[in-house]
């Protein structure tokens, strides 16, 4: 067996992160577009909400004057200068696959090229809502094809472990961002219109995280905001919940060499989550909780890099040839 190069570990880790980010971004834009078709104008929720979810207000204001659907979609879908745009994520997926081709199944590379070709065809059409929605669905499909090939063809080795860790960190990170939106939905001073559309909005939130069906099956057929949030943060068997992701990260880290520091960090985040009482959390506290989870995950990222991607090598670590 060949031990994994640090550089390869880093590349497949980021490949998995960007793959997750691309899929989630496409899903979010798709769901949000369809949500706005149901909502009246002039509400707390509009196109600009998406820019807020990506914490990209500053970047957007710098390059665009008007918060129109056209501009916001250009920014979030096609703009390569925007580090969180769909186009950037997809390009990073492909580049990381290209540079770790020798450890990944061949089909994955072909799929990445298909998305790349599709992207070049579709990007000029971001302002056409019909074509854009179609493109989002295709991106989701291709991402799932890649994931399928990885899942069914790869041995459960360290390459796979790093990809799983990357995927779950990104998933937890994206979830906490999207959940920030709930502070709007729970705010005491929310508008009457918003109160009227609450059912749709919570449903939409669950859908953006592909959680609606499982929520209805495992929690309740009736949507309840607080219960939905609890499900998305703490459920133990739903693979899209933050709690599930954190557990999965620890499980994978156990297979890696010297995992003590990163595992301790993940454990700390789990404790933080466990101690938060979601059922009685005031709206202004949601924001703080999500913020702190996100910054903890930033720290985790640093620990991972230091432990496995850029460790200090010394001769004493030398392993004998077996």
């Amino acid at each position, binding site marked *: 067996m060949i031990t994994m*190069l640090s550089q390869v570990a880093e590349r497949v880790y980021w490949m998995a992160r960007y793959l997750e980010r691309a899929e989630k971004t496409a899903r979010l834009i798709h769901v949000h577009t369809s949500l706005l078709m149901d909502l009246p104008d002039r509400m707390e929720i509009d196109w600009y909400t998406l820019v807020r979810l990506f914490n990209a207000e500053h970047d957007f204001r710098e390059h665009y004057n008007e918060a129109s659907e056209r501009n916001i979609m250009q920014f979030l879908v096609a703009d390569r200068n925007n580090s969180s745009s769909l186009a950037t994520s997809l390009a990073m997926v492909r580049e990381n696959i290209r540079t770790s081709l020798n450890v990944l199944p061949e089909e994955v590379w072909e799929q990445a*090229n298909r998305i790349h070709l599709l992207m070049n065809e579709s990007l000029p059409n971001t302002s056409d809502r019909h074509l854009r929605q179609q493109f989002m669905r295709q991106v989701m499909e291709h991402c799932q094809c890649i994931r399928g090939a990885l899942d069914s063809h790869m041995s459960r080795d360290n390459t796979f472990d790093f990809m799983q860790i990357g995927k779950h960190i990104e998933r937890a990170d994206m979830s906490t961002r999207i959940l920030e939106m709930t502070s709007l939905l729970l705010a005491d001073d929310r508008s009457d219109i918003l109160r009227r559309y609450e059912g749709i909005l919570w449903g939409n939130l669950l859908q953006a995280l592909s959680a609606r069906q499982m929520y209805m099956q495992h929690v309740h057929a009736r949507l309840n905001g607080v219960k939905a949030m609890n499900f998305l943060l703490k459920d133990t068997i739903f693979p899209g919940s933050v709690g599930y992701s954190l557990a999965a990260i620890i499980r994978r880290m156990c297979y890696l060499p010297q995992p003590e520091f990163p595992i301790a960090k993940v454990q700390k985040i789990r404790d933080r989550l466990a101690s938060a009482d979601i059922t009685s959390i005031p709206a202004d506290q949601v924001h703080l909780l999500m913020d702190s989870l996100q910054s903890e995950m930033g720290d985790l990222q640093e620990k991972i890099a230091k432990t496995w991607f850029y460790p200090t090598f010394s001769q004493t670590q030398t392993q004998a040839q077996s």
Partner: protein
Amino acid sequence: MRQEWNRYHSQTYYDELIAAPGQPRPTSERLVDFLSSQTPQHFKQCVSEAEATIRQMGITFTVYSDAGNIDRAWPFDIIPRIIPGAEWDRTEMGLKQRIRALNMFIQDLYNGGQIVKDGVIPSDVVYQSKGYRKACEGMTPPHGVWANICGSDLVRHSDGVMYVLEDNLRVPSGVAYMLENRTITKRVLPEIFKLMPIRPVSAYPSQLYEMLASLRPDLDHPTIALLTPGIYNSAYFEHAFLARQAGLVLLEGSDLTVGKDNYVYMKTIKGLERVDVIYRRIDDDFIDPEVFRKDSILGIPGIMRSWRDGKVAIANAPGCGVADDKVIYAYVPDMIKYYLGEEASLPNVPTWVCRRPEDREYVLDHLPELVVKPANESGGYGMLVGPHSTPEKVEEFRKLIQENPNNYIAQPTLSLSVTPTATDEGIQGRHVDLRPFILSGKDIYVTPGGLTRVALVKGSLVVNSSQGGGSKDTWIVNEFMPNFDDPTQEIEA
């Protein structure tokens, strides 16, 4: 498309597939027949399917320009080039003979240079060659083999004879494209494969692995790595492809370090682990900043020590480029006679060596007809192609040769063979060459065929992909063809 194929003619050039208008060579009869029976629409479909496949498979090469680096799709022509089996068997023997002599020559040079002492090759030709590395003197790599991977360029002249144009012994590239070309043809023209037996090329990656493993006969499972200059190198696609197919660790210089014990280690998630064999795809100059170019950031400081100590095998061995020199090329037939006592079975292109006064006189008198090459350049740099040049350029080379005759050779301008190619103006003849790949370790292996490069521009002789060249699948086909529809006939293996 029968009419179009019947109209096809290749003027005065030797044609690889067609003997005379409307008359395919015996080994290409079934292919031409199959292609003729297609409708133009279906053929066009096949061409676009091939293009789509190449884009999906991500088969690219990088072109460097002022506007940045562009990844271009690999230009591929779907009409295969066929070489008759019996001719190929002879060519393969010739290639093996040649690489054996070249390796004996390099081994001799770095260990006393008997061939120079015996006056077969002048000493300054050898020891002043840019490819000669003092740091390699006294070394004997495993099996005495220096050039483990060789990609010779063969061309066919209008006399129908296949000549060796050059021996690429440093870091020859293109084999991944040879393999991918076959994959594309199988996808796009699967029917043809049941009409005729075509020798498979897919053994190359495992042959490559076995050859590399044979460089450490003392280890059962050596760790073998492919060293790439990096992810922005124009051949990175090939490096990643070969590493995946042959099961090698793909790494860059920065992933490696030489320990105090002189072993080479790679940086893994578990710490440092030993590497036993390195298939390097970077030039001698860059391999070890302690010994060669000090400014190299691609290489590994100390790796030459490790190699000299026998603690790591490097393929190709450092210093083997000395035999990849245009002047030394001229002496290869003499080498074969000297080391093997045999006549060269693959001919060299007739070559005038400008250091010989009588050769020089001839060259200077006939410059506008000749091709002039400097000793130690590759990729067609610093060359004069007389018939396609200007009088000023010819005079410039006259001066260069007079000032430094030792650095130049000259050859007649060959008229390269052509082969039917799909162009915008229909099926037309385009010039081709051939690069077979030869692996030498414990044993010698030659790819059946190789990479056929084609000059896609009408009349052009330039086959380089960066300058309008493309490539074709290359088939070795036996003259005796079983009838696949007749079960009573046995199929020859």
